[in-house]
Every structure is written in C-alpha cells, then in structure tokens.
C-alpha cells in the first residue's frame, strides 16, 4: 500500500500478485514462467513491466488479467481475489473491469473500426446508440474518428493498434493491460501510442500496466518493474516525462 498523493491515507492496490508462480507443462517438460512474483499496482499508475523475451512479462499480464490461472500464488483485482474464481466470474471481470490491448492488435476483421471499438460494450449489452457514441468518443480521443467506418484491413498497423486501444478505452475499464502494444509498430508510431496512453492515464486516471522490452518507451512511464527468469529483479519509480 502507498500513501496517496495528498498524504491523507493509504491507497489500496488495484492489482496485486502474491507469490505468483506459473509453470507450463508440456509432457514431462516443465517450464517455469513466473517464480514467486509479488507485485502491487496502485490506481492511476502508468507502469511498465520490462524484461527480455521469456522473462514472464506476458504471463504476468495474463494472470493479472484473469486470462490464465497461476500454478500457485494469488491474484487480486481490487478487493477481489481472482485466481480462485470460476470461468464465468473471470469472464465477467474481464468484461467489466479490465481492458486489453494485444501485441497483434487482434481486431475482428469483419467489423469496422467503430464496431471493433464498440465490441466490448456490445458484449455488455449496451444499446447500439450508446455504445457507438462511446466508441466514437474513444476513436476521437485517439485521433482516428475519420477512420471509423474502415475495416481493419484498410488501416495501417499503427491505426489498428489505436483501434485496439479505443476498444479497451471505450468500455471505461478500471485497468488497461497492454501486452507489448508497440512491438509490431515502428519506433515513431510506438512512441506516439505510448504518449497517447500516457495522456489518457493523466486525463482519466486510468491504470495502465503494459509490458515492453523496448528501452526507449521506458522513459515515459512512472514505474518500471523489471523481470528476469520469472522473478522481479527491480521495481523502480521514475520521473516520467
């Protein structure tokens, strides 16, 4: 727990991992991906999980995002312990509390940018008019409102990733988890996307936790959690730009 900015009291973490371990088994071969990770992320933080390939960044995000189950340890979202929930409860949490941005964009090719951005809201059962308004607002915030009616195959990589971010943002989740969101983008576009996410974090107070192995992006975050071989080797608070 941290003291809040005003020093008025303790802030409860929105994401928490306690002794988190994950071992992938393939036949007799066991591959440890995480080995006893302890981590707390406070609301409104803009945190990067850094480390080389295979260090366990994606696995950590998947476990915290209720996409996978740990071999041992605990995961928490706010006051809710999530690693013991059943599939339906975890799906509900992902739908209502967490926004995801994936490395490969993962847009639905038959939907337009607007429909993709509104997709999570559609799953929530939000009426069409409302969800399109929210999705359009998210696209506008990301500067791609004029591409709203294009399909993914008519967009560049950077534009597709912005739509993916818009999909996460339109649903107004408590936390956005982004797994290497800039990995498929050139450095300029990647940097622009991080700046954009940083701005949304500052304007909306939305919590961002993203993984990256690109050292240039780390200059723009508040906090860097470094992983190596499935362990946290450093947890640095830095002065973001």
């Amino acid at each position, binding site marked *: 727990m941290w003291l809040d900015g005003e020093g008025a009291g303790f802030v409860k973490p929105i994401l928490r991992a306690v002794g988190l371990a994950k071992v992938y088994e393939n036949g007799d071969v066991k591959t440890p991906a995480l080995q006893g990770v302890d981590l707390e992320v406070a609301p409104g933080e803009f945190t990067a999980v850094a480390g080389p390939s295979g260090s366990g960044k994606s696995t950590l995000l998947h476990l915290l995002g209720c996409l996978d189950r740990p071999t041992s340890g605990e995961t928490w979202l706010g006051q809710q312990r999530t690693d013991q929930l059943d599939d339906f409860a975890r799906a509900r949490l992902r739908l209502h509390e967490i926004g*995801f941005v994936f490395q490969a964009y*993962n847009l*639905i090719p*038959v939907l337009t940018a607007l429909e993709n951005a509104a997709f999570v809201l559609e*799953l929530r059962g939000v009426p069409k008019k409302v969800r399109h308004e929210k999705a359009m607002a998210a696209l506008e915030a990301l500067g791609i409102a004029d591409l709203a009616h294009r399909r993914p195959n008519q967009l560049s990589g950077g534009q597709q990733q912005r739509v993916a971010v818009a999909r996460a943002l339109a649903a107004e989740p408590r936390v956005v988890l982004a797994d290497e969101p800039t990995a498929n983008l050139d450095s300029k576009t990647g940097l622009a996307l991080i700046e954009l996410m940083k701005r949304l974090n500052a304007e909306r107070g939305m919590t961002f936790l993203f993984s990256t192995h690109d050292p240039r992006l780390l200059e723009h975050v508040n906090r860097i959690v470094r992983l190596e071989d499935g362990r946290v080797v450093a947890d640095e608070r830095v002065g973001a730009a």
Partner: protein
Amino acid sequence: MWALAWRNVWRHKTRSLVAAGAVAAVVLFTLVFFGFVTATTNGMFELLTSESGHLQVIGARAREVQDFDARLIRDAQQVEAALLRELPAVRLRRVLEVPALISGETRARGALIVGVAQDEVLAQRFAQEHVAAGRLPSPGSWDEIALGAALARALQVELGDPVYVFAPGTEGWGAAAYTLVGLLAFPQTAYEIQAAYLSLEGAQELAAPSAVSRLEVHLVPERGVVTDAVIEDAKARAAAALGPAVRVETWREASPDTAAMLDLMDPAMAVFSLLIFVLAGLLVVNTIYLGLVERIREFGVIIAVGADRWRVMRMVLAESLVLVAAGTAVGLLTGGLLLVSWADGFRMPGLDEVLAEAGLPAVLYPAVTPAQVAVTVGFAVATALMAALWPAWVAGRLEPVEAMRHVA
C-alpha cells in the same frame, strides 16, 4: 450478434454458398416432394372414393361369408329409402355383383357381372373415365351389356355382337343373352378382363331380384373436401338408421391396405426428408467448423475481452442459423414458385398408363399444407442447431491465451 454472424458466414463466400445451396436444394426438394405426396394422396383418395364411395352399405355377413346369396342385401329399396332419409344429400350407386360364365359366339370365360344403377352425376363421371367405345347399358335395360375391352378381346366380340351370360344356381333367370353396346377401359388390366356391366335391373333379373351387393354412398361436401371426420359422422348416422341387418363401412374399412398406405405417406416422407437434411447438415458442419478453425485466434480475443463460453457458443450457433436460414429462404422461395407454377396440374408425359395401373391419377395437383412447410422449416432449424453443436462446444472450451497463440 446476428449482424456479426451474417458477416462471418460470408467471409468465405464459396464455402458458405455451397453449404447454403445444399440447404436450399434440400428445402426445395422436400417442399416439392411434400407437394407431390399430398397430390398423390389426394389423387388416390379421389380415385378410390369416386370408384367405391366414401361409405359402403353391405350385407351384415358379407365380410364373413363367400356364398353369393348370403352376401346380398335383399330388401335393397327399403335400405336405400332409410339411408336417404338420414343422409338426403348423398349420391348413391347401387351395385349387384354376380360371378358368372360369359361367352361370345366362339369363346367363353369366367366374369364378374356388375349391375349398376347410379346417380346421374356418378354415371357421367363413370362414363367419362371408363367408356372406351359405345356406351353404358341404358338404365333399366334388360338386354344390353358393356364389357371390359380386354374381356371383349378375349371373347372375340365387337359392338353389336350377342353375348351370353350364365349364372347357374342363382334366384333369377340364371341365363340371358345381351347385345354388346359398350367397351370399357379400366386401369387395372386384371379387372378389365373380367368386368361385364349391366343395368341393375338386368343383373337383378339374371341373378337376384330386388337385391344388391352393396350401396355406395358418395358424400357431397358443402365446401372444401370430404374429411375423415365428415365420413365418420355420416357412417354413424347411417349405421344408426339402418340397424344391424346391414353393415356400414368407411372407405378406410373397405380398403384398409390403401388407407394404411396413404396414412404412411406423410411420415415416410418426413423420415426421408430428415435423412436428406442430415446429409446437408454435414456440409453445414464442415462450413461452420472450418470457419471456427480459421478463427481460433479471433475467438480467443473475444473470450479474452470478456465473452463467456455460452456467449461464444451462441455466436457459433448464430452463424449456423444464419447460414441455414439463408438457404432455407431460397429453398422456400424457389419451391413455392415451382408449386405455384404447377397449380393447374402436373402430368408426367408418357406415364399415364403406368400411373393408372398403380392406381395413381395421371394429373397431379401438388400442394403443401402449413404443417408440411412447418416440418420443412423445423428440419432446417434442427439441422442448423445440430450442425453447430460440436463446433460451438469446441469454441466454448477454448482457453483464451492458448487460442490467441494459435497459428492457423
């Protein structure tokens, strides 16, 4: 969900068109087949009842005994009068059948002498359908006879020739000479070669004065067709009015084999259609499953962003329903247009005699009932659901992380 399903279905147009086309073909085929089954059933019913009536009044022991005398209704006029008092609006055909020996100048053979007196409408219909040459014996005539054309050929007699009939052991003259006034054609050759028609009075004088073998009752519907319920009601009234001296039978009881066959046609057709739908369903399974395999990553993302397993299963089912609905709509439309185009009757060229021999009408009037359309659509919906069950189950069990790593 439906819009997404529609777009997903048409991602692979050729594959989806083949599957939807198969469904359309099966729906079309089923609809047309149902139409012809209905037409055949109605046609056979019409043929059967126009030949033998909706009801028959026979001697009380006619079904149990073989003896000619014992099978007769002796007081025919009284029975007829009582019947007409209860059912005044019916048309009657009075029939006396006499087994006899018949001969021309040179040849002889066994025959069935049929004395007939009937309502004018029935007589006209009978003449239209069966008189191949000449005419029927005049009502009340004692010396005119019409023979089945095959029987006339067997006896080597022609119109105007004398024909001799011997019915020994009966209560009439037992023998008489007639002039051949007509040749009759019947679809069943076996009947044509033994049928010899007299007036009822002529037959009664020959073998059984005042008696008949049966009264055929032809109901006249006030509107529409004569239903089984109407027939059963008429039977009950006739039986009550005529008492135990005679037996009243519906056409079903008089021709149980034919009735059973007609009753089986719809269920048999339904089973047959179901089998064809199963084959079409395999194509739908293939289309939906391939669509799933190619989009495993996509389903992984959909699950990752919050869709639960039931939601994913519903999405797959929706795609199958959309695909089958498109095919069903096309099938219903084309099938409906075909049936409408045959509204004035459908005749298979060159098959009239074959159909007639089988007791089927030469001209069919295909039509479908709402129930048959509902069964067709029901089969299509069931096909869509069954075809999607397995792919939907597979999709619902995907683990999002593994699915998003999947490489097609």
